[in-house]
């Protein structure tokens, strides 16, 4: 059957038989049974559950061979359930001294597998001592297995295993000196290379060693290994990556490493070349060895032409990584040259990298434009839209650059075969700035038009659309108008008026109509305003890729941080003209109500004389009012109850109203939860300031992806006059209020649509400053608008497979922080879950096995960060503490923030939440946390 499977046929019969074989008493049958199950079945297969017991019997049984078989099998396909039920037995086998090494090493690896499946199987406290003991093992086979396990343990928790560090060094020493290594473990003259690699790897996870003795011996060993590497190819790699870690004291050693690597990359053997390049890249990420590596630049560039694509890729990566201001010019030019000969598989990456480098390190702007235009010219198909958008943005934002770019574009248009992207850029730039060139020969509007028009017949619809705009602009810039040119352009417009593509048709019609108006056109097609400064899409992409490749290993983490710093720095370079990744300043924390029902209760209290609740939901402006009815029912249930409650009427006296103060919030698909907290805020604000004035105000809020509609209703019989509304947005929000009418007539209602753009995360709240006169009484109110952070969240559910890697890949501040809150009354988990759902966080029950934990995830949208993933995990202890870990995973970089979970003590009177402790005010995560 296995044979059938080997031949690639689907085998879905006979599984049952295989499993029954496992429980057979005889060795051959058992063996066959195990081997079949372990290669045929997937770890989640249902059948496997049935054999857990048999396997367990084998493991705890006396027969060693059976034990081996069972361990091997569990080691290879054991899943979560195995981890739970078998781990203690396996551990016992590993530690027991009575077993043969054979069994123990299997147990070691088996435990590793189980540990990977379920981290909880190994209890940290007890294990560090045991681990230290195990590392004293004499048998190299067992040691190898134990080391694998050790690496896994250490990579998750370095702190706990400090005591094992000297042991590792000792092992390494033993191996390097070739003491006490049996002949059979010597592999081509090197004592157990695998163990060496593993040990060094484990050492990587520790920060630099403090103890001078250990350090000295380690240093010696490494030195020795390094020395031994000239001829032998094997051990080199670990040194390189390891020495990296100890670089601070060992500057000299670093240069030694690099020299060695330099030798590698010039060797004929391709494997070694590959490794040399790769390790150089790696070292660059961590260490400050750029200068030394630069010496090998020429060699690296030749590697770009290697016949092997794997090597070429590495070389490209290395070049990209080693680039800085001093050598950017050379490297970018080299890349461009290479671009014309490179093979297709690599071109896109190459083009992107060249563009990024050009942007990051451009010594001057014209060079940047040059490089990019060349890039577009040469790579054409492989240049993504981002690149050329960026060029255009650049040119628009830098006035000095405009004539130069226009000239360049004009030159490119002279070429016969031109790539379409090039046509787009040129046409765009010329359209905008050709008038700057008008005095040059061959650049009169007519000539430019002729050149561009040549290309018109060959290009695709999107380009045609751009060309049409260009014509319109040329026409506009030609002052005084040239009737002949005008005729030509109009002819084209007319031709495209019936074009099949709607976009083009529309443009043609509009431009035609506009250009007929003559002078009016000037205003319309005035030069493009500067683009808002924003982060380059390219840099963003670069960061993306970096985050993608981010790994858990110690080196990588360090390097990643370094990288992101580097990026922030380069962001500020004038050439890239982009703003640093937005870091909202310190924020004020508005205190907000929290419980779902609390605001309503509060409302009811404040407003004792609620006659009627005007639940008049209005969907967003475009959805129109006919949905009113149904939505009203769907309105937050909390609102209606408040009507009945009416408990205290603290303000009754003052609000002499025949009118009601009513608020309501509307729910709609995507944001089904509501400004709960803010309603209360608003309400307080309203009530406190307006009491005694007969008026009614109905601010209906509709938050719909950044659109608010304010409804102002006057239920009184006389008009409100001199109505004025002013929005005071905090720095992170961009709000645009449409025109506000001077008066609101009696018994009428007006709507003010309000556009909100979330630029970045912040806890500030926008304020609406609203004033009017009623009769002779002037009223001024300040209202908080419910455009708060959680409005820009969209729940997203994350599966366990996605969640945990993401979660784990972030470790330590500022990526992940956590805080423990003590001494507060815990909130029940369901309530927490409710709260989360209300705040637009998708709670994923069951993702965490511990019922006391809560896991939620959401996507945060803002202008600066686009969508980013936020992961939140709350761990509660049944005793009194709640811990909130908040983690955000932003597209470009990851942040996670600890915040104490503010656990409100539900007091009957005031359900005011304790102001959340401010975490790191710079982190969007903290903002979010502030909202919680």
């Amino acid at each position: 059957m296995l044979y059938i499977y080997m031949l690639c046929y689907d085998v879905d019969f006979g599984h049952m038989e295989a499993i029954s074989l496992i429980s057979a008493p005889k060795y051959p049958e058992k063996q066959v049974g195990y081997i079949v199950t372990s290669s045929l079945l997937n770890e989640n297969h249902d059948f496997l559950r049935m054999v857990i017991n048999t396997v367990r019997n084998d493991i705890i049984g006396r027969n060693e061979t059976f034990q081996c078989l069972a361990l091997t099998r569990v080691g290879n396909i054991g899943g979560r359930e195995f981890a739970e039920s078998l781990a203690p037995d396996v551990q016992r086998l590993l530690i027991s001294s009575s077993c043969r090494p054979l069994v123990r090493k299997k147990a070691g690896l088996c435990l590793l597998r189980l540990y990977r499946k379920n981290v909880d199987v190994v209890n940290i406290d007890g294990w560090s001592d045991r681990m230290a003991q195990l590392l004293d093992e004499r048998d190299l086979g067992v040691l190898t297995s134990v080391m694998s396990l050790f690496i896994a343990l250490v990579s998750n928790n370095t702190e706990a295993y400090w005591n094992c560090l000297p042991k590792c060094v000792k092992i390494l020493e033993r191996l390097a000196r070739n003491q006490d290594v049996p002949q059979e473990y010597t592999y081509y003259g090197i004592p157990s290379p695998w163990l060496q690699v593993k040990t060094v790897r484990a050492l990587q996870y520790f920060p630099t060693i403090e103890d001078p003795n250990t350090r000295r011996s380690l240093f010696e060993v490494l030195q020795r290994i390094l020395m031994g590497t000239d001829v032998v190819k094997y051990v080199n790699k670990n040194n390189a990556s390891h020495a990296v870690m100890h670089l601070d004291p060992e500057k000299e050693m670093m240069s030694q490493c690099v020299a060695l690597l330099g030798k590698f990359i010039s060797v004929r053997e391709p494997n070694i070349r590959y490794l040399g390049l790769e390790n150089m890249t790696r070292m660059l990420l961590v260490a400050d060895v750029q200068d030394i590596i630069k010496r090998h630049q020429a060699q690296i560039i030749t590697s770009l032409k290697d016949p092997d694509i794997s090597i070429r890729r590495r070389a490209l990566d290395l070049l990209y990584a080693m680039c800085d201001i001093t050598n950017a010019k050379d490297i970018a030019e080299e890349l461009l040259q290479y671009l014309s000969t490179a093979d297709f598989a690599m071109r896109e990456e190459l083009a992107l990298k060249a563009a990024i480098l050009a942007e990051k390190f451009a010594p001057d702007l014209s060079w940047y434009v040059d490089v990019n235009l060349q890039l577009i010219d040469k790579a054409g198909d492989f240049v993504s839209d981002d690149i050329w958008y960026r060029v255009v943005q650049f040119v628009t934002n830098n006035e000095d650059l405009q004539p130069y770019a226009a000239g360049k574009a004009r030159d490119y248009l002279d070429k016969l075969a031109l790539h379409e992207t090039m046509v787009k850029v040129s046409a765009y730039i010329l359209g905008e700035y050709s008038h700057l060139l008008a005095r040059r020969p061959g650049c009169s509007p007519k000539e430019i038009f002729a050149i561009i028009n040549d290309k018109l017949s060959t290009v695709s619809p999107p380009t045609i659309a751009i060309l049409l705009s260009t014509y319109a602009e040329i026409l506009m810039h030609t002052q005084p108008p040239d009737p002949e040119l005008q005729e030509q352009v109009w002819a084209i417009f007319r031709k495209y008026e019936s074009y099949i593509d709607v976009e083009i048709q529309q443009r043609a019609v509009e431009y035609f109509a506009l250009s007929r108006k003559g002078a009016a056109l000037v205003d319309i097609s005035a030069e493009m305003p500067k683009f808002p400064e924003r982060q380059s899409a390219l840099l963003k992409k670069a960061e993306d890729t970096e985050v993608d490749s981010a790994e858990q290993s110690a080196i990588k983490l360090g390097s990643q941080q370094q990288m992101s710093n580097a990026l922030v720095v380069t962001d500020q370079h004038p050439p890239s003209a982009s703003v640093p990744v937005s870091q909202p300043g310190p924020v004020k924390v508005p205190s907000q109500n929290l419980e779902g029902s609390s605001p309503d209760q509060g409302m009811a209290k404040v407003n004792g004389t609620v006659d009627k609740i005007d639940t008049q939901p209005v969907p967003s402006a475009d959805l129109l009012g006919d949905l009113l009815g149904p939505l009203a029912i769907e309105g937050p249930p909390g609102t209606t109850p408040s009507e009945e409650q009416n408990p205290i009427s603290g303000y009754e006296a003052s609000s002499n109203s025949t009118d009601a103060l009513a608020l309501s919030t509307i729910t709609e698909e995507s944001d089904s939860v509501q400004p709960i907290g803010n309603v209360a805020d608003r309400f307080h604000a309203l009530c406190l300031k307006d009491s005694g004035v007969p008026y009614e105000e109905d601010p209906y809020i509709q938050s719909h992806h950044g659109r608010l509609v304010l409804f102002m209703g006057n239920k009184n019989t006389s008009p409100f006059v001199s109505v004025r509304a002013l929005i005071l947005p905090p720095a992170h929000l961009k709000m645009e209020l449409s025109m506000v009418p001077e008066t609101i007539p009696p018994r009428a209602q007006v709507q003010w649509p309000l556009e909100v753009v979330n630029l970045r995360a912040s806890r500030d709240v926008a304020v609406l400053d609203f004033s009017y006169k009623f009769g002779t009484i002037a009223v001024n109110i300040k209202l908080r608008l419910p455009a708060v952070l959680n409005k820009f969240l969209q729940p997203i559910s994350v599966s366990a497979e996605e969640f945990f890697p993401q979660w784990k890949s972030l470790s330590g501040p500022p990526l992940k922080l956590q805080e423990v809150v003590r001494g507060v009354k815990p909130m029940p988990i369901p309530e927490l879950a409710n709260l989360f759902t209300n705040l637009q966080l998708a709670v994923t029950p069951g993702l965490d096995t511990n019922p006391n934990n809560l896991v939620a995830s959401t996507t945060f949208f803002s202008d600066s960060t686009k969508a980013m993933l936020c992961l939140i995990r709350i761990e509660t202890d049944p005793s009194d503490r709640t811990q909130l870990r908040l983690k955000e995973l932003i597209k470009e970089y990851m942040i996670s923030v600890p915040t104490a979970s503010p656990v409100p003590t539900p007091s009957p009177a005031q359900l005011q939440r304790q102001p959340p402790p401010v975490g790191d005010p710079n982190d969007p995560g903290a903002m979010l946390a502030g909202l919680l």
Partner: protein
Amino acid sequence: MQIHFVILISKQGKLRLTKWYSQYSAKERSRAIAELSCAILNRGPKLCNFVEWRGNKVVYRRYVSLYFCMCIDHDDNELEILEIIQHFVEILDRYFCGVCELDLIYNFHKAYYILDELVIAGELQESSKRVVTRLMDSLELLVEESKEKANTIRNVIAQVTK
């Protein structure tokens, strides 16, 4: 950190052995095999032994008509894996006394056993050739013994029933 899977393909693209240490569905498995055999078989002899594949690396080595491929993480040590392959082949060689493709076809289960002794959970388990071969021999013996036993029992039964 670990080996994700091991596959052996012949020069003609026929699969000789597969072993998966990470979880892959049947569909992913066959796709991986198809893609890799395509990528690897087309590479020339002078090129390096590493191929990048879906964010992972595949280390392969050719022995006459067989390609041994192992897939590892991007930041793993390629040479280590390359030497594991070499090690594996040497053990096979020692066990079969001059291994060839046919040995692996007819005794594929033995190849599996050896691999199991060598690698568990994607990590190298035993780096001594002697230990592995000795172990294999002892297992062999066990099998033989129980077969003999079975035969004798059968004989007894046969005699009785006569």
